């Protein structure tokens, strides 16, 4: 740890450069993803839901359909663009709601005594040990599939993890000296949480949000692939893969594009989250 200075400094410098690379690549990929989704509201190559049998199964590279068309003649690029919207709606929606619920629960657990802490922490442990995918199957089948059910399922999986992370981050802030002085000054608990704790854990919150946004996109794709996620007229990349496998077989390029889109977007968000973690919170160790 505190041996000679030279060997510790050199790896650290190299490490920082490597991390910035992940931030830059992450930002570029994520912005590209968001821009494509926004553009899809104003412009699409063609309607992604209206079949056009005369144009069915066009190969990639066809004029006007650069990535080709599917078994019903629907343009692939248009479907991928609308699919990006679903990924954002469901992924970011699930991550946002879990972030809010998890922050409230985590702060209560950290600041409101042992009983609240035990109840919330053990509750989160229990929820974490329930396999999400199986529950989501049941949920989708009983509540009916759709974007809202998927967001609901994601919220149920992600909130306990958020709660844990926020709790431990808040606890370490609450032990700082400036919290003690705020208490001595006569500040109430709510004021201290809002004014001192939340700004100090904002970095953790942003990083976690990014990583769960990515996890949400993966889970949504999985559920839609199983046919219990979103349904048309909404379009999901997972659903496109399912349709490709059902209608034309897996060897067609139709089964490649949506998978590639998922990998690029999830990779971008994960790199962004890792990069942000090292910039915003150097103390926090790299995990998961």
């Amino acid at each position, binding site marked *: 740890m505190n041996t000679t200075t030279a060997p510790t400094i050199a790896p650290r410098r190299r490490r920082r450069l490597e991390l910035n690379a992940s931030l830059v690549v992450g930002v570029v990929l994520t912005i590209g993803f968001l821009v494509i989704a926004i553009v899809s509201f104003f412009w699409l190559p063609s309607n992604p839901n209206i079949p056009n049998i005369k144009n069915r199964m066009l190969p990639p590279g066809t004029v006007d359909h650069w990535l080709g068309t599917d078994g019903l003649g629907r343009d692939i690029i248009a479907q991928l663009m609308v699919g990006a919207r679903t990924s954002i709606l469901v992924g970011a929606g699930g991550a946002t709601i879990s972030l809010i619920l998890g922050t409230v629960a985590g702060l209560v657990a950290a600041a409101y005594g042992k009983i609240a802490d035990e109840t919330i922490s053990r*509750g989160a*442990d*229990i929820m974490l040990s329930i396999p999400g*995918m*199986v529950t989501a199957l049941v949920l989708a089948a*009983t509540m009916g599939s759709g974007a809202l059910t998927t967001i609901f399922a994601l919220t149920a999986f992600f909130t306990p993890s958020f709660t844990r992370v926020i709790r431990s981050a808040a606890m370490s802030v609450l032990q700082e000296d400036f919290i003690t002085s705020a208490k001595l000054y006569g500040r109430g608990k709510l004021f201290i949480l809002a004014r001192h704790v939340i700004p100090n854990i904002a970095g953790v919150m942003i990083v976690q949000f990014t990583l769960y946004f990515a996890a949400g996109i993966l889970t949504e*794709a999985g559920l839609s*692939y199983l046919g219990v996620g979103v349904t048309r007229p909404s379009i999901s990349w997972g659903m496109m893969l399912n349709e490709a496998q059902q209608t034309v077989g897996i060897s067609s390029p139709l089964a490649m594009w949506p998978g590639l889109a*998922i990998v690029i977007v999830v990779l971008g968000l994960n790199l962004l989250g890792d990069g942000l973690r090292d910039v915003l919170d150097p103390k926090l160790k790299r995990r998961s």
Partner: protein
Amino acid sequence: MAIYALRKLAFFLGAVFVASLAIFILIRAAGGNVAAIVLGKDATAEAINALAHAYGLDQPLPVQYFNWVTNMLQGDLGQSFRTKESVADLVTARLSVSVPLALSGLLLGLIIAIPVGTYAARNVGKPSGAVLALISQIGIAVPVFWAGILLSVLFGVKLGWLPTGGWIDWRESPIGAIRSLVLPVLSLGLIMAAVLIRYVRSAVLDVMNQDYVRTARAVGMTRTQALLSVGLRNAALPIVTIVGLQIAELIGGTVIIEMVFSLPGLSRMILANVAAREVIVVQSTVMLIIIFVIFVNFAVDLLYGVLDPRVRNAA
């Protein structure tokens, strides 16, 4: 140790209870007259009432919950409304597909992740370590079903070595059964490995910076010797925990992979029974899976307590 074990046991029982309540409410919350849906449109009111009565579906929900739980405690998981098959039989029939798939997937993941993760940790800051970290990052971003599709295009369609889906029963042909499992296990294992490599890497990195590794090196061991003699044993603890946590992920992956390769495992049975509103079958099967996962975590906690005195004494 006894107090530690009792605490963990209490948590295990509490978790199972809460989960059973949650599952019951989730499945029954959808409402509707289950008996009417099961019997279809042409059923007479008497037939519907008779079925509802026979299965206790006409009783208040708390009573139904109580009966379900007490029956399960006595080993009776219930039976299907339509086929009258017992849930225990339905489940055991599917286990010969799901269990080998999930276990081999996990095993393959560990076999890849432990050496690769250790290598990546030892070469942190070097190009080879960075490349491995990047590969693992990409692997994490690949949805498990897409990995399945890609592998089945390569080995099934292009090379024609292995079936792209379907199932041959063990009794019919053990080799056929293994052949139908190779690609599913490969997809599951590779994606598990990508996730696990990161955990192994950071666990080994942590250990490498510990004082006892420095001491071991100071007494003359090489880096490799130090890592093998004291490092891996200590890195094993966090890795065991992660494997426990990954069990839920593993089951999620198994569910999807069974669909990709149309294997007649547990997940297909659950989906079919959900669609048919066989509430008892679904409830009991899902509950069995959840108990299994919670039990694995319980066992991991106990193992952790045995391996590391600091853990059991902290409680």
